């Protein structure tokens, strides 16, 4: 199970990479493994607001559908349009080419609620 040390995590299995007030968001290696073959990602529009712990998009696997949850509140400043034609980038490279959106965070204090790698590891081991 790949859980990079330099990222932050949600209980809903999103990862966040923080650079200044820009948070890049994807789903974890564990999550993509559980979902299996990802066939569609419903991306939000650039400019919409996200609310922490609220859905911002949807991910469809062959048999199941799941919501994607925002790790922080803010504004969507970029989406990974490559996922429109290649949703399985999330399966192949969940922490790299499979990133989903970038959020400009409005409140950095929310970062404190995210799990670190060891906290996330504990979560999925339980």
């Amino acid at each position, binding site marked *: 199970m790949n859980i990079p040390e330099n990222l932050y995590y949600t209980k809903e299995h999103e990862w966040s990479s923080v650079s200044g007030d820009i948070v890049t968001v994807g789903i974890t290696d564990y999550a993509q*493994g*559980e979902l*299996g*073959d990802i*066939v*569609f990602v419903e991306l939000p529009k650039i400019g919409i607001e996200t609310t922490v712990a609220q859905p911002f998009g*949807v991910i*469809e*696997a*062959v*048999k199941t*559908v799941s919501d994607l949850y925002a790790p922080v509140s803010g504004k969507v400043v970029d989406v990974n349009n490559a996922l429109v034609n290649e949703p399985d980038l999330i*399966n192949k490279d969940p922490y790299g080419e499979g990133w989903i959106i970038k959020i400009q965070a409005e409140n950095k204090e929310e970062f404190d609620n995210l799990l670190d790698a060891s906290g996330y590891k504990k979560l999925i081991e339980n």
Partner: protein
Amino acid sequence: MDKEKIKETALYDVHLKSGAKIIEFAGYMMPISYRGIIAEHLKVRSSVGIFDVSHMGEIEFKGENALEMVQRITINDASRLKEYQAQYSAMCYRDGGIVDDLLVYRFPNKYLMVVNASNREKGYKWIIENKMDGVEIDDVSDSITLIAVQGPNSIKTLQKLTEINLEKIKYYHFAESFLAGSNVVISRTGYTGEIGFEIFVSIEDSEYIWDKVMEAGKEFDIEPIGLGARDSLRLEKKYCLYGNDITEKTNPLEAGLGWITKFEKGDFIGRDVLIKIKREGIKRKLIGYAVVEKAFPRKGYKLFKNGEFIGETTSGIFSPSIQKGIGMGYVKKEFSEVGCSFDVIIRGKNVKAEVVKTPFI
């Protein structure tokens, strides 16, 4: 489901070794996928795959009235079966609702019913409640491993392991024979729509047979297939899944199973009500539909036409073969014709869909 009651099949360790992702299904720890649903699905369509379907239940009917009992409890005509022939059938309640869909196998000395794992206890109870004299009923599920080998290369794979000519076993026929030296029942049946076989083998020989089939299929890149691809494979052929497309609240006529409902065979449980339904005409029909846009139907999604509720999705999936969202569902009869368009409500949005010819592929 009571945690303590969750069972493992005889092949559980093989699945773990093969890297399966395991889920609980119908009281069993079962492989949902190994390499990935899409890859597994396409392997069965193009070559050959092997499935552990030991969670299925097997119930034997023996004794002088075995046939009469099978005739009474199932809707297809088992008297038409020759020895070593099988048929698709179902059991109904008195109100015409479906207890289970199943296969009936005629052996020289008995009838064997293969029932859904999720319905094994319920079905067995129903059979016992309606038991006749002169018939002995036995649930033998725990002594049988059921392995499916499906795909265009299934014959070539299995032929290496047996002397009987598998080409000569016709669809819905079976043989009692040897496979790699083990006693098996080998049946030309399956749930994928491909040429394929289902092998009944003892618990003791399960792993041995699995390994032998894997070895024989090596040149065809055989791989293990999980329940995920089993579902997508059957859906592309519009085969019903109990609990989704057929339930206690649906009857065989609206489910498109009129072809196995044999009124002329004489009395059976549910016949009176089903005759009445047939006479009055069904009100809704199980259809297959395809979604026009890139969106995927799921069980429970509602169907609307011009703002009017016309039905509900019972199964939905991304079809690996046609790369589209496909679904099955019941719609009011007047909207069941091929070409009829309507909206599927996906997360509050209306998405265009159309009744299509089935099987989907």
